[in-house]
Each structure stands twice: as C-alpha cells, then as structure tokens.
C-alpha cells in the first residue's frame, strides 16, 4: 500500500494522500496528469478493475472534484485518483478508451453536473432526464424542493417539520426550544 502511494507521489506529485482504510486510499493529482495516472495504474501496477467514477461539487471553493476509483484484483488495494477541475468552465479529458463502461459515467456526469468530456461517445445524449431545461440537476445550487413545488402541484396539507425542533416540542413542551437549526435546505 505505502509502496504504491510513494510511487504515485513521486511520479505525479500527488498531494493530499489519505489512507481511509487498510486497503483504500485517495490521492489528488493535477488535472492534466489524472488520466495518465489512471492509465499508468492500469497498465503497470495491475489496477485493472475500474470501480467507479464520481464527481463532488465543492461549490464554495468553485471546484468540481472528479474521482476515478481503481481496484487491484491481485493485491486487493483500492486507490481513488481525485482531481479538481474548474467549476466555471468544467472540461475534463475523456477516459473512455481505457475501460468500456467509462463513457456511461461521462455521459451521466455531463448531464448531472454539466462537465464536458470532449470526444467521449454519445456524451451529449440524455442519460436519465428528458426535456430538462434547468441547470444541471446535481449541482449544489439547484434547489430540488423549490423546483418540485413550482412544477408538480404539491398536495395541500403536507407539512415538513425539522425533526429536532419537532421532537423537542412534542416530547419536552415545557422547555425552551434550543435545537434551532440553520436551514440550509438544498
């Protein structure tokens, strides 16, 4: 485990190496080197099983974090190669030539976050939505509750309580309400 992490650090200037579990580690690699790192891990280090590709929206920092999670079937090690891309102009090099299923992930991320993968097959086609004309639905600033209330005729009479305050009011009605929660509905 440490051996391979050292190699990545040395070769790709990997930062922010976190060993989450005994056999799971996440490393951060610069955007230009990410696909190379993934290719190198696949071809030379035996990480032949592509587990998943994911994206996290760090809206506050103005970045998207892409994750390529690889698994080595021989040593049973998982390494997540992370890279950060700009949120304003989200473009990432396509990796569809490495594994057959990656174009599906890229198509999904294109739809969900608006990340472009030039050259990836069928990346512009709809994946799960049809006739979507709002901002990409998995971005943090997209408020799904508001959208739903605006669009789908909510049935009147439905109430949503904050569980903490509601329980306190129900169970301890005499005490002053302390469990106020900052409403950060998103």
């Amino acid at each position, binding site marked *: 485990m440490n051996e391979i992490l050292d190699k990545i650090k040395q070769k790709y200037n990997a930062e922010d190496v976190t060993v989450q579990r005994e056999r799971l580690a996440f490393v951060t690699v610069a955007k230009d080197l990410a696909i190379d790192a993934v290719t190198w891990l696949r071809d030379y280090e035996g990480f032949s099983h592509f587990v998943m590709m994911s994206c996290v929206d760090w809206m506050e920092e103005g970045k998207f974090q892409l994750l390529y999670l690889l698994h080595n079937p021989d040593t049973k090690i998982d390494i997540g190669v992370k890279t950060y891309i700009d949120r304003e102009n989200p473009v990432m090099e396509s990796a569809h030539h490495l594994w057959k299923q990656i174009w599906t992930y890229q198509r999904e991320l294109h739809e969900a976050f608006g990340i472009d993968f030039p050259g990836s097959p069928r990346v512009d086609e709809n994946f799960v939505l049809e006739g979507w004309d709002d901002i990409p639905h998995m971005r943090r600033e997209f408020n799904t*509750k508001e959208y739903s209330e605006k669009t789908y005729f*909510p049935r009147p009479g*439905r109430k949503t309580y904050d569980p903490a305050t509601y329980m306190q009011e129900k169970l301890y009605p005499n005490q002053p309400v302390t469990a106020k929660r900052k409403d950060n509905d998103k």
Partner: protein
Amino acid sequence: MSEKDMNSKVSEMLARSEANAKNSGKKFVRPEDEEREVVAPDGSIIKVNPIYDYFSGARPEEEKPRNGIVEKFLNWARAESIWVLGFGTGCGSIEIPPLVTPRFDMFRFGVQMRPTPRQSNAFIISGYLSVKTLKRVIRTYEQMPSPKYVLALGSCTINGGMYYDSYSTINRLDHYIPVDVYIAGCMPRPEALLAGFGKLKELIKAGKAEKANEYARNFDWYKANQKKIVKDWNMPDYNW
C-alpha cells in the same frame, strides 16, 4: 421533372427547414421530427409534420354507457375480468410477481396480466412516476380502450411520498390521469393490492368507474397539466 431540378429543390427545402429550426422556439424537437416538405416519387410536394402524424389527431370522446340491464351485465363482466397491463412503472411492481404466484394468486378473482395496452382495461401505476415515465404512461393510457381503470399504488402517487421534493418525480397522479383507486402504503402489500382490486370491482359493479369519460370531458385540463411538465413532447420513434 429532371433530376437536377429535383436536387436543387431538395437542397432548397433542406436549407429552409434548417432556417425554420433555428427560428422556431421549439427546443426539444429533433431535426427529423420537424415540420417539413418532402418530394413524393411523382414530383409533387407533400407537407409532413411527423409529430402530428405520429399522434392521433382525434380527441378522446365520451362514450355513453348502454341502457339498463345490458350495462349492468357488462359491468359485472368487466368487474369479474380485470386485465391488468404488465407495465411496471415503479418499485411497486416487485409485488406483482407474488400476486401471480401461489401465495396470493390473483387469477382466482378474475384478475389477469396482459402484455399490450390494447387488450387491458386496468393500469397499475406502481409507485413514483418520473416525468420520463409519465409521458409513456399517458400515451399508454390513451391507447387503452374504454372503459379503463387506474389503480395507483403507494404514497408516491398520492402526494409524492418520500420523493415529495424530487425534481424528477410527480407529486399528484390525479392531475395527469384520472385515478379510480388509490392503494396506500410504501409499498402496499399484496393483500392490500387484492383489497384494492376488490374495491375496484365494487366501483365497476356500481357503475361508478367512469373515469375514462371524465378524462375525455376534462381533456383540456389534463393536457394542460401534462404539457406543463412534459417538455420534450415528441416520442422517440413511436411511429406505429
């Protein structure tokens, strides 16, 4: 007409249709579904509007019940022979296999599955409906012959259930198609489904399950609601 003329005509028309596509505000119409002109083999020019041609132009009409005892007898037959369309629209469809197998055997109540909408008269909306499915559900519902009945499963069809805040699933099914029987639960047990069929039978026998006519009567309202959320209205290649 010479071949050269034809070619110039075709290229002219192509240019025109491209310009139309740019100018028209229709976002989700794919180029092959646009209104355009085509040259017939004999040289004449025909206007085609694929979306209009694919869909039935006729509005559904109210179909009056027959008189007295005949309708009563037919209602009895309809109640005792409910043919359910085999279209699992949501997660509630996992409770359909238990219904057709030894434990809960719904065949003994005259309820059977049918693979095509033309031959079924009951539609189980099994749980949440995403907008993408709703479009197919509406089309399927309109294809079913009247009288037709809708059973809506789960809390998702009543008020959105636990997906009340989802951007993808609808909240109230009865705004888009008329519902005869709601079966509550997440998800309803097979026993509840059998009870729902029992309730539907009572309604049919009493002559109260005339929701297909209601749909025809309030067609404009239903269509307005449907069009509000289904923005991409052209069906991909359902051209039969």
